[in-house]
């Protein structure tokens, strides 16, 4: 039974959600909303497991006095500080105006968000610029025909999108200017490749979903 019940649940849920796609009638019409609500709630329960896993590993590091134990302490302190700030600020006056939330400007939670969370997150995103440069230095080489095509199409699009490209090719008729070539590459061959990939992905999703629903693919439900 331990094995069969999850498989039955998977199958029934799968079929129900395929059907809701075709049936506008109640209750099928509400399935998608119900799923997203339930999913959010299950996620809110599950994050307790996640947070406990993070805390457990950090505490383990501290108790073992392993190499980086003060770093683990930093994680715990930061986690608790923003959780406490958010818990105190919370929601107030849910049904009356003005309702305040922990995310309002001026709260401690917001201060942490603006001055700690945001700069960290946007800097991590920004160092992508460095990696983009080193990846192009290494990867854009005419090693074989495929790599050469990659190089050329990237090169055209790159140079066609900066003013330099137009200075270089400004003397040519409009149809032969670099920016025009770049737009053409984006509009046509690029679309073709994207389409092939997308159609493939769609059919792959269909066959994977069927394997899941029929219980052929079930490694995540055993153990």
């Amino acid at each position: 039974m331990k094995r069969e019940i999850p498989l039955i649940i998977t199958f029934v849920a799968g079929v129900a959600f395929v059907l809701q796609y075709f049936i506008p009638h109640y209750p099928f019409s509400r399935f998608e909303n119900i799923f997203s609500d339930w999913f959010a709630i299950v996620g809110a329960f599950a994050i307790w497991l996640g947070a406990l896993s993070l805390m457990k590993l950090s505490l383990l590091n501290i108790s073992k006095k392993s190499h980086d134990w003060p770093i683990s302490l930093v994680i715990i302190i930061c986690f608790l500080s923003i959780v406490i700030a958010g818990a105190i600020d919370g929601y107030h006056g849910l049904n009356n105006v003005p309702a305040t939330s922990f995310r309002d400007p001026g709260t401690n939670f917001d201060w942490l968000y603006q001055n700690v969370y945001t700069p960290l997150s946007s800097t991590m995103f920004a160092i992508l610029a460095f990696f983009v440069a080193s990846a192009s230095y290494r990867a854009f080489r005419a090693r074989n025909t495929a790599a050469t095509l990659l190089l050329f199409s990237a090169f055209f699009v790159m140079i066609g999108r900066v003013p330099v490209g137009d200075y270089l090719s400004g003397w040519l008729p409009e149809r032969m200017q670099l920016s025009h070539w770049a737009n053409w590459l984006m509009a046509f061959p690029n679309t073709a490749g994207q389409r092939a990939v997308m159609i493939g992905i769609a059919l792959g999703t269909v066959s994977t979903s069927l394997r899941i629903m029929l219980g052929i693919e079930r490694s995540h439900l055993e153990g």
Partner: protein
Amino acid sequence: MIALLRIAKSVVFISSLLFVMSILPTHSVYSQDAGPSVSDLGSITVRAHDTDNDAGGAITVEWDDPGYEKLAGFVGFLIWRTNTLAGTNDSVEVTPFGTRTYDDRSVSDDSTYSYSVAALVNGERLMSAPSVQVRSSKQWFDGRLTWVLILGLIICGAVIYFIESAKRGTKLFLRRIAGLEAIDEAVGRATEMGRPILFVAGIQDMDDVQTIAGLTILGSIARTVAEYDTKINMPVRASLVMTAARETIKQAYITAGRPDAYNDDMVHYVTDEQFGFVAAVDGIMVRERPAACFFLGAFFAESLIMAETGNSIGAIQVAGTAMPAQLPFFVAACDYTLIGEELFAASAYLSEEPRQLGSLKGADVGKAIAMIVILVGVIATTIASAWNSESMLWIENLLRQMFSTG
């Protein structure tokens, strides 16, 4: 010399495409509307009916404009509703220019309504006669999706057919995928070197099929890992994925007969924040120096940050995603990349279970249909426009109708 030849080949390939299009004449495809000419205006006729293919609670109102809209001082059409059971009147909406149809979504299935439409011109209301009484209702099938249903049934039928025939022992041929041998090779190398494996199943939650596909590949990898006692480290961004991944790895250890070697901490949650997760994964990579990194699932902008860091520590990297925008970065920075559909196919290949392989054969039927439809459609269009062939036009319209999705 070979390199020169390759470059020449590519240059010819691209530039011949570009050259042909660049010497062609230009003309704009946009045209201007004809100017207004209004003489005498009749009254507005209004039709109302239950909105098709919906969950009830909506009535579609349609009207035609004898020319009010072109008058100076025209503001809009006012939709006027009478609840014929309750005997109440109210104005529903003033529609913007160019609108001739309106879905009133504020009705109840339990009442009947009648509608009038008024043109608002210079503060005047020019009201039409009321429509017939209508009642909204729910439908049990969305008629616009008939072809979706038929095509879907054909493809699902093909998948199930091949699964069944594989179960009965029919030998199915499938070509090999380049990235797959690399997976075993990568695990083998990590085992030899005594260094861990890093596995990232994308950054989406369990409500993305790519995450599930990533976890099924994890299942195969974990079996090898369990057999050879390699270390595996799997940071995750969503707690549900953590639970599912733990189940997956645990099962692999049980199958390998070493349940005691399994430890929950192999899979650990970091944070839900996209770039916080990336910062942590980067940290793990440079400190633990895994011999092999797997990035299999749904990825966004972080793909290159992780793949480049992995590259810098000299790990063997296998990636796979169905995010078209991130594929170029994986192709550039990883040793092997499962492109799009290959990600979904990989777990079936790795399992070597006939039923799984059968499902791939079914998806191939879908691709064959797609190619045939595209080619037939294009040929039909070409003939139809060149020789005005009626039958080809019919095919063209049929295909257009079949594949339009509402």
